[in-house]
């Protein structure tokens, strides 16, 4: 009886969190942007499935001590691609909140927004490096 209750509650929790994650990614319009950049609108279903598969796989990796043994190169590729994804995610988040347009408007520097953007980009890259290398996370 206890087990059934546990299974039901954890399954429901999973449904809610998964739905929220998918809704969040949809809201940020990362997929439309990636489709536009790569000009592969035909394959959006494949991207959807691979996205679900990745979420599922990493959930398993997170909960169980799996060993996939991809080696250092595999780890590097994995790091690079997850970095690209999180880069688009953080940019999309900033864009949804209209950070850069408001700054461009208030300071009247529409023409030179590229410089400001590059500054932000470098800030994120070096901030991430600083965080990991100095072991701030403990």
């Amino acid at each position, binding site marked *: 009886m206890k087990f059934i209750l546990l299974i039901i509650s954890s399954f429901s929790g999973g449904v809610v969190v998964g739905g929220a994650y998918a809704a969040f990614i949809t809201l940020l319009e990362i997929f439309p942007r990636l489709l536009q950049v790569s000009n592969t609108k035909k394959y959006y279903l494949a991207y959807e499935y691979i996205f679900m598969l990745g979420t599922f796989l990493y959930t398993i990796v997170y909960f169980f001590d799996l060993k996939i043994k991809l080696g250092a190169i595999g780890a590097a590729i994995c*790091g690079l691609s997850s970095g*690209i994804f999180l880069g688009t995610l953080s940019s999309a988040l900033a864009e949804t909140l209209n950070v850069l347009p408001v700054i461009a408007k208030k300071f009247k520097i529409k023409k030179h927004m590229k410089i400001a953007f590059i*500054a932000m*980009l470098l*800030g*994120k890259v070096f901030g991430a490096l600083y*965080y990991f290398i100095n072991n701030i996370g403990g």
Partner: protein
Amino acid sequence: MDKDKVYVVLKNKVTIDTKETIYLRDIGNVYCSNVNIKKRVEDTEVYCGNGIETWDLIDTVDVAQAILKNSDYDIKFYGSPDVLIEIKSKEKENKIFEFVKIAFVSITLFFGAALGIMYFHQDVNMSDTMSKLYFSLTGIEKDTPLVMIIPYSIGLGVGMITFFSRVISSSKRRRMEPGPMDVELYLYDKNMEDYIINELSKNK
């Protein structure tokens, strides 16, 4: 005799200098089979700036009144019902001030973004996640797996460029597609203009 038909297509928005008089040709296009009438209508004075930087609104009724004041045509209006007028004095380009502004914004964004990404990583416990992931992928336990961290950090920048930059492609049409920031800037301006038009027409 039939009245001469005059077609007027109004623009959405015009920007003019202070103390400048606006003629109809500035805020829209005029079509008429008779060239003389076309010229006369185009030279109708519709608005006169009074030296103050401000926003103002001209609607079709104002334009019709101005045209019909001293002549009688059959006018047909097309295009936008209201013309938003932005009156601003020609800005003097101040290179030093511009540079200071850009430097200020850039420095703020640099350190802000750096601190922001650290907050984010700390919030989602990225450090532990990375070492756990590294262990899962390679079977080696390491607190700071540089092999993963450096590509990840570079990827962060690449991802931002992917999101914001214009499309890189051999086709000219594809290169001209705007990025999200261009669209967002445009929408922001458009919403602001809509708001101003609404406010101005309320007080009219």
